[in-house]
């Protein structure tokens, strides 16, 4: 997905001279074409991510459209106050892109894990929070973000994510239904969608038909879909802590309704992961691989 990001931002910036790319000293070769084409609109801000955010806010206040790019924990938890005050409080149209989200850098350990970014970013007023499932959806989400005049946070993967969507018209606040089914509803958020679709296939083999939604828009939620959500039970699946993220956001909305459906939040347990291997092994450890998901879902439905 990071290659798609680099390619799309190049396209967008060639068409919109307001776009400026700021990087926290990563992705250097990734932006070679960008730097060659637009040398005054790319800046490596060094290993100083909080300042990168403030700098972006200053650029945006003068009418530019900056995007801040580095590994997710370094562009979220590391710079929270700058995002809260300089970007959100001033409603500056800064786009923050966190790469390698969730378990994408599993083998590097907790310093490179992001299990809390959705929880934190969605709690900030003015911030749009998006978790595209694949490269095409990322590109569409980027086009959407740069057409708005608000801050946006995009949580993306790293590389090798399968193409799962055919979305070319991304809109915040609208989810896509990819499968229908009458036994349960699965709401997948972000790049975990691939495992969720595979889980749906495994469940189908047991004659369990589940609806599957791709829910890239975490803030705003798709309130229309949530208001008419069926069938129960509902499962949310995210490569993020079960505390505070997409599932919690859905739970906040549903719990106020009359007779809300039963909601089970699947995600990363509330713990730091140690020695969990690469993303595939880490997902297994957390029960987020297709086989584990399908047996956990089947067990809840039985």
């Amino acid at each position, binding site marked *: 997905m990071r290659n798609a990001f680099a390619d799309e931002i190049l396209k967008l910036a060639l068409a919109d001279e307001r776009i400026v790319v700021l990087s926290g000293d990563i992705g250097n070769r990734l932006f070679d074409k960008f730097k060659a084409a637009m040398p005054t609109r790319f800046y490596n801000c060094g290993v100083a991510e909080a300042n990168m955010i*403030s700098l972006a806010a200053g650029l945006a206040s003068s*009418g530019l459209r900056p995007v801040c790019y580095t590994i997710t924990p370094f562009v979220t938890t590391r710079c929270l106050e*700058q995002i809260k005050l300089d970007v959100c409080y001033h409603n500056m149209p800064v786009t923050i892109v966190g790469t390698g989200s969730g378990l994408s850098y599993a083998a590097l350990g907790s310093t490179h894990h992001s299990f809390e970014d959705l929880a934190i970013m969605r709690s900030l007023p003015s911030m749009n929070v998006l978790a595209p499932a694949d490269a095409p959806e990322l590109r569409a989400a980027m086009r959407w973000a740069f057409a708005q005049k608000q801050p946006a946070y995009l949580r993306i993967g790293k590389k090798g994510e399968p193409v799962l969507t055919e979305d070319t018209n991304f809109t915040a606040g609208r989810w896509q239904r990819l499968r229908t089914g009458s036994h349960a509803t699965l709401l997948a958020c972000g790049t975990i969608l691939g495992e969720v679709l595979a889980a749906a296939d495994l469940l189908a083999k047991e004659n369990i038909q589940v609806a599957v939604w791709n829910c890239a828009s975490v803030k705003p939620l798709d309130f229309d879909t949530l208001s008419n959500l069926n069938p129960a039970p509902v499962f949310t699946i995210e490569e993020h802590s079960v505390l505070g993220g997409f599932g919690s956001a859905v739970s906040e909305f549903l719990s106020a309704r009359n007779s809300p459906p039963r909601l089970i939040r699947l995600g990363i347990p509330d713990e730091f992961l140690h020695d969990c291997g690469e993303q595939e092994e880490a997902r297994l450890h957390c029960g987020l691989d297709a086989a584990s998901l399908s047996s956990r879902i089947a067990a809840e439905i039985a």
Partner: protein
Amino acid sequence: MTSDLESRAREIRFRLICMSHEAQSAHLAGALSCVDLLVALYWRILKIDPSHPAAPHRDRLIFSKGHAVSALYVTLAKLGFFPEENLARYNQHGASLPEQPCPQMTPGVEWATGSLGHGLGVGLGMALASSIQQNPHATFVLMSDGECQEGSVWEAAMLAPKLKTAPLTVLVDFNGWQATGRSRDIMQMEPLAEKWTSFGWDACEINGHSMQEILSALEKPRDHRPRAIIAHTTKGKGASFIEDDNNWHYRSPSAEEVEKAAQELGIA
């Protein structure tokens, strides 16, 4: 030829003392220490137009020591950014002059400061934008010495010399105190100017209450480096009983104290 500026500064200091008394608000001493810097900037240096506070080519001043914003408000009022009568409602609920600044609420205020350490990074962004957009203007960031304890200041300071930006100037109101003590007792502040120089800035130290020295530092020719002016000041400058007494970080003056200040400042 600075007597008009000095007279202006006395006028502003007295107004600040009155406002603090009327609103019973804190942070008077930190506001008083930066008055001369503000007067020099706003009456001699900044290219701004009070009737067009959002003009794209305006010079920007970020008042990063947001707790002392009352000094900025009086300055802006005297220049005509908003009616001087508004100062009577400083820090009142629903008025347009909140105790920590907010650009949406007050013309002439560039950034909502109040949490120290943000102004320089934002100002650096504005100076960079000026260069990218080929929209020439100058950017100034007024900070406190305590504020220089925030790590975010040094991230910005270390990056600034590497970016080709329009002119960027930091003024540090070095009054020697912070909320709970002398800044040099709490952190290793000195040598402060040398710290900026070592970060690649064109740094100098001045008496922050001498209009001549302030203007000299602001007007001297620049090289490619961003500029840092370390202005040694007295916290509470203007009334003898307020100067260098850190209780005045928090307390507001009585009516008698206002009268005493008027006498000292030569205000009728």
